[in-house]
């Protein structure tokens, strides 16, 4: 067997390794209920803003709380320990990465999708987490 073939096989092995580890690293989209089953574990929840409930931003302590509805229609208070994202009220869809804690959801990172007025479709909410590095 030629050396180049051996190298190619190593390459393929690497690729398979990459797939397997990606599958391992990948998380799943869950509902609040599923996140509750495993408090403290980090999950991604996609939901919408519950506009019937208040959102509050405490600037002094930089704590932003709001209510979100997940895909099953369950509503949950979400606590976000960061400044309130710009134009959060306009978000059509909110992707929250975080964990369930007591009876609320602590979001570490929030991505929001705004109406199509944004040509870009989305505005980044949590600059720190997503755009770090």
């Amino acid at each position, binding site marked *: 067997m030629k050396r180049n073939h051996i190298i190619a096989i190593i390459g393929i092995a690497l*690729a398979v390794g*990459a797939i397997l580890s990606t599958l391992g690293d990948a998380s799943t989209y869950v509902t609040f209920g599923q996140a509750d089953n495993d408090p403290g574990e980090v999950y991604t929840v996609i939901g919408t803003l519950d506009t019937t409930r208040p959102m509050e931003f405490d600037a002094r302590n930089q704590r932003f709380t709001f209510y979100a509805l997940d895909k099953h229609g369950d509503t949950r208070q979400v606590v976000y320990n960061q400044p309130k994202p710009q134009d959060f009220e306009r978000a059509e869809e909110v992707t929250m990465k975080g964990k369930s804690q007591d009876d609320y959801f602590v979001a570490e990172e929030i991505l929001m999708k705004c109406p199509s007025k944004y040509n870009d479709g989305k505005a980044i909410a949590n600059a720190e987490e997503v755009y770090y590095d």
Partner: protein
Amino acid sequence: MEYIGEHLLPGELGRSFTILAFVFAGLAVFAFSLGRNTVESHWNKLGKFSFLIHSISVFSLIACIFYILIQHYFEYDYAWKHSNLDLPMRYILSAFWEGQEGSFLLWTFWHAILGIVLVFFGPKTWKAPVLAVVSLVQLFLVSMVLGIYPFDIKIGSSPFVLIRDLPENIGLPWTQMKNYLGRIPAFMDGKGLNPLLQNYWMTIHPPITFLGFASTLIPFAFAIAALWTKRYTEWLKPVLPWAYFSVMILGTGILMGGAWAYEALSFGGFWAWDPVENSSLVPWLTMVGAAHLVILHRNKGGTLKSAMVLCILSFLMILYSTFLTRSGILGDTSVHAFVDLGLSGQLLIYLFFFIALALFLFALRYKHLPKTIKEDDFWSREFWMFVASLVLLASAFQISFTTSIPVWNALFGPEGFIPLMSSEMAPPLDAVSHYNSFQIPFALIIALLLATGQFLRYGKTEPKRFLKSLGLSAAISLTFALLLGWYLDFFSDPLLFLLLFASLFAVIANADFWRRKMRTKFGWAGASIAHMGFGLVLLGALISTGKQNIISENQTFIAKDFPQNENLLMELDDTLRLGNYLVSWRGERIEGNYRYYDVEYMSSNEQGEIKTDFTLSPSILINESMGNSPEPDTKHYLEKDIYTHITYAPLEEEYVSPDGFSNEAQAEMQVGDTAILAQSFVILDSLDHTLVDGEDGQIEEVIVEALLTIVHIDGRNYKARPKYIMRGQDVYYEDFVVEEPGLKFQFAEIKPEENIMVIKSWRKAEDEKPFIVLKAVVFPMINLLWLGSVLMAFGSGMAVYNRIKIQKKTVS
């Protein structure tokens, strides 16, 4: 019906040019295909003529869009959506490609330009088949802006659609008004350009990036032409300058995107492994591999198939990226994907067509492709160059695989074509560390090969000599790495330290190589310079992100398990210590749509005197219709940057009720629940009922009292007992004020069916000083990254120039 005030001519012209561009691209495909094996046949001439007409039509159609934008003809949807009367002229360019149609046209435009270069200066024997492929791609691209509906199937989306002709507006009453433009205020001004794009970077970055995208077409077209016309090795020489050109432009475009993100967006960095960034990085990686394999074959033979595959793959990856970013499939995972225009199907057909074409030709010709007979020596440059290309491919593959998670969901998710997975995959929760865990080792290997590769000879190298010639650079690099590692604290992470050494080694060994071998041959220095540049990019990226220091880290403890806050609240004229600086917010200025916040950075010397070092003015761009967007400001020093951006600033006054309480909030609770209200955890312990009998013995009043425990941020617990009073049909509230932390609670509602109590809270409005919340980061040595980018572009440019010169020499 005749409408008043419409300007239909530019639109009609534009549509005619679109059709001309489409038809003549088709004609060019046809003529060039028939003339593919000839040099100056009639078919060939017809092909060139058609391609030129096609190109002129593309330019004219773009000119029509510009005319509409400049004249503010808001009856056109494109002008209305992407510009307004206030838009400065310099952003008309951004308005042009803000929409999908415009960006397709920008891409088409560059293809046309590159095609014209080929028509006039391309290698004679290759013009016809290569231009046939280019024209075929153009045919598909122009179809994306056709905007016709044969048999109710949407083909393309035209930038010349009038608002009244949009499908969603047809039949609306105002479309029947003759003078709707003059009567309806909405049409008097456009919606304007996304404020994020109103930035000078945004006028140069996308054109360069699209030129980069377009440049990958030429190596692809050459590879396809080679398979098609069965001239399997001749194409490698003329393709070389094009491959290097692509490496240079695509690389510059990617790094410019990083510079834009760093300077103008509030990401706090230049690279985020965002799917859109990734999808331009992947074709660059494969193109770098392709260019090196081509040069390898030129010098040594072999690797023909791999060179072909990578040339083809680079362009296919560009198509795939286009599909990812424009079909809306990235919707949940990316920041800057486009909205879906209903063209996903067409894009998919486009993608599959070219994949099928490449696979078909490759399979058809595979048997005839020349085989490599001899084996590469272990101590040879060709062996390690091949390894490097494979590493690049592996790196591209890994990035692509993770970026494609939404595609895997669409294919194999619970609602996909083949439902293999029980639930949808989400991207890795910590994307950065996921990518880094692969890409850092890859970068390490690449950097080491970059350092050593040039010192290996083609054929066979004497190992001792090789090691000897590298010894000095290795020793210098190690010394620098140890010093830098000690200074910047890199020893805690051996992998990062190795990368620090390897990238330094890449820089120094290439400088040494240039000094020894290339000083006299100026034209050949391109490779060394580009390699040094890449080493510097790695070094700069490693140090500036690995050792970035968020100096605004908030020290306040909020609760356990809460992520540490990287933002700091700053009151007007208060001085806070941020890293080595004393920082004050000095006030707010309003200029146009911008609100600037002047933040003064000071430092004290040994005598204790405080002097101002610099003032930064991060800003917020106020935009009613599209949302406000913050823009950072950065102080650049030679060895570090201090980056500052406003994460929050109160833009409106908070409503304060007459009793001095504000910040109303409410929570729905059941007994035993905890809610977060007014900066505190509020627990509804129990309810207390009291019935008050009236004089007639009937129940006159029902008083329900909520017993609340308030766990305040000051660490103390308080009790509150707001009352909900029902008297007959009426409801009264008795609010409860907790004086000490200044909170007021109201028992606002009872929902008996769900057993839910609604509690409202207010906080005492203090005479608050104005404040802002900011984030400040020190990025050490980020200038190495920019210096490296410039060197890389310059070095690749030299390589392109050198290759063109060599070709001219051998031709004449």
